């Protein structure tokens, strides 16, 4: 048999873990990984935290690579621009065409920018995002004591960068359309407590409002909010969520409305039919997880690239080696999402999908909401998620109780 080639589009955590898992399964063919950044895969969560304190280099953040996966072909700074899923080729931005036997879409997400006119959307103009190491280095230089920082968005990144900027001595205003910080994963009680703790640290929130204008010409000098408030700013951080990097897959009948829609084996669906040998992993994979329900979800937690990378590698290796493929595809996979967040002294750890809870399904399981606690998130009778503030060992003890969904149990007994 001639040597097979797996092309991995995206040199982040998902691409790396998929490649390592393919080698762990014994795949001996060529693995080529294309990335749009110059850096080898590195850990992104510190970018909104430690990396802004000036202590972090790429060397410190780079992922270790398993000793069994040192023969990967890394093509960094060499992004993929297009694909032909019938001819089994990808086209690089340079114009080069590369053929594959299996393709892994691991291109991740980009930081979303507000489509509002104003100074250029660049760090040099004071408008920052945090997605890449270079973004963090650029922001770090601006977070000087007394700097007036406006954070747009109050999700994970917005809250973390607000906390970090306060600890660096900046004046911090946080603007969000939501009613409370991190309300979607946390629910109102815990989100209100998180807001209180940020305010005790000096963060000023402007919630339930949007942005109507950036002020300044070459450089941002402030923002105008939808309630008429004007905030002066030396630094604006746009932490407004993400945009999936999937344009390179356009034109083949894939469902790209929110990432790449796949089946439970992470095979891309073309007009509803699974494409053998084409997988999506990481932030862009939208797949059904029977632990919760049959709806496909896209989850941007740190645990997902590793879990999806392993699943995709298992499926692709079976496909390429023609070994137990049908069985492996049919074996349901139900990895448990997990996230953590560090803000000031607050250490948050979650398992499951707390955002799926019923509005009245959020209950204190342990501890004290104003101190350390574990909150449980229920949908009907099902515990769909837990979030701990502190109490790490206690919240870890709930991990195995999250899921399995009622419909699974009913299906098993019917």
């Amino acid at each position, binding site marked *: 048999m001639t040597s097979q080639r797996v092309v991995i589009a995206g040199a982040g955590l998902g691409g790396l*873990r998929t490649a*390592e898992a393919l080698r*762990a399964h014994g795949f001996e063919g060529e693995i080529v990984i294309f990335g749009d950044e110059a850096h080898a895969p590195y*850990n992104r*969560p510190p970018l909104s935290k430690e990396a802004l304190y000036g202590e972090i280099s790429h060397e410190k953040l780079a*992922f*270790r690579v*398993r*000793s069994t996966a040192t023969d990967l072909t890394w093509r960094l700074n060499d992004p993929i621009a297009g694909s032909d899923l019938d001819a089994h080729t990808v086209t690089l931005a340079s114009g080069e065409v590369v053929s594959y036997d299996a393709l892994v879409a691991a291109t991740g997400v980009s930081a979303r920018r507000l489509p509002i006119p104003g100074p250029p959307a660049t760090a040099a103009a004071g408008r920052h995002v945090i997605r890449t190491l270079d973004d963090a280095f650029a922001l770090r230089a601006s977070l000087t004591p007394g700097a007036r920082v406006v954070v747009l968005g109050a999700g994970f990144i917005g809250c973390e960068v607000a906390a970090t900027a306060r600890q660096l001595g900046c004046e911090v205003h946080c603007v969000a359309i939501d009613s409370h910080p991190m309300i979607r994963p946390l629910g109102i009680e815990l989100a209100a407590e998180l807001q209180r703790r940020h305010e005790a640290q000096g963060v000023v929130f402007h919630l339930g409002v949007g942005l109507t204008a950036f002020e300044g010409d070459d450089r941002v000098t402030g923002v105008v909010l939808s309630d008429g408030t004007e905030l002066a700013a030396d630094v604006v951080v746009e932490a407004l969520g993400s945009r999936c990097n999937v344009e390179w897959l356009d034109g083949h009948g894939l469902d790209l409305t929110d990432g790449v829609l796949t089946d439970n084996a992470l095979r891309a669906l073309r007009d509803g039919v699974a494409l053998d040998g084409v997988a999506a992993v990481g932030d862009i994979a939208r797949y059904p997880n029977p632990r919760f329900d049959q709806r496909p979800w896209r989850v941007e937690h*740190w*645990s997902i690239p*590793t879990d999806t990378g392993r699943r995709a590698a298992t499926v692709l290796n079976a496909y390429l080696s023609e070994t137990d493929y049908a069985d492996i595809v049919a074996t349901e996979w139900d990895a448990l999402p*997990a996230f*953590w967040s560090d803000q000031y002294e607050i*250490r948050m*750890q979650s398992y499951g999908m707390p955002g799926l809870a019923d509005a009245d399904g959020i209950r204190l399981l342990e501890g004290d909401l104003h101190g350390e606690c574990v909150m449980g998130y229920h949908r009907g009778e099902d515990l769909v998620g837990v979030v701990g503030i502190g109490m*790490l*060992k206690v919240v*870890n003890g709930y*991990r195995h109780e999250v899921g399995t969904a009622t419909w699974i149990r009913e299906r098993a007994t019917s």
Partner: protein
Amino acid sequence: MGLKVVVDMNVCQDHGQCVFAAPEVFELDDNGRLVVMVEEPDESMRSAVEDAADVCPVQAITIEG
């Protein structure tokens, strides 16, 4: 040389994700601090300790050998 697990305790923040991946090797003590129970696990544990190193949020675990 056999397998060796090294945790940089200056980096470790006691997330405890490694405990789920390799409970025979890692444990959180009563104070919630990470303890490496078996520093030189048997070769049969390789996959589990590699998985444990993968899931460490702060990448504090290295595998030698």
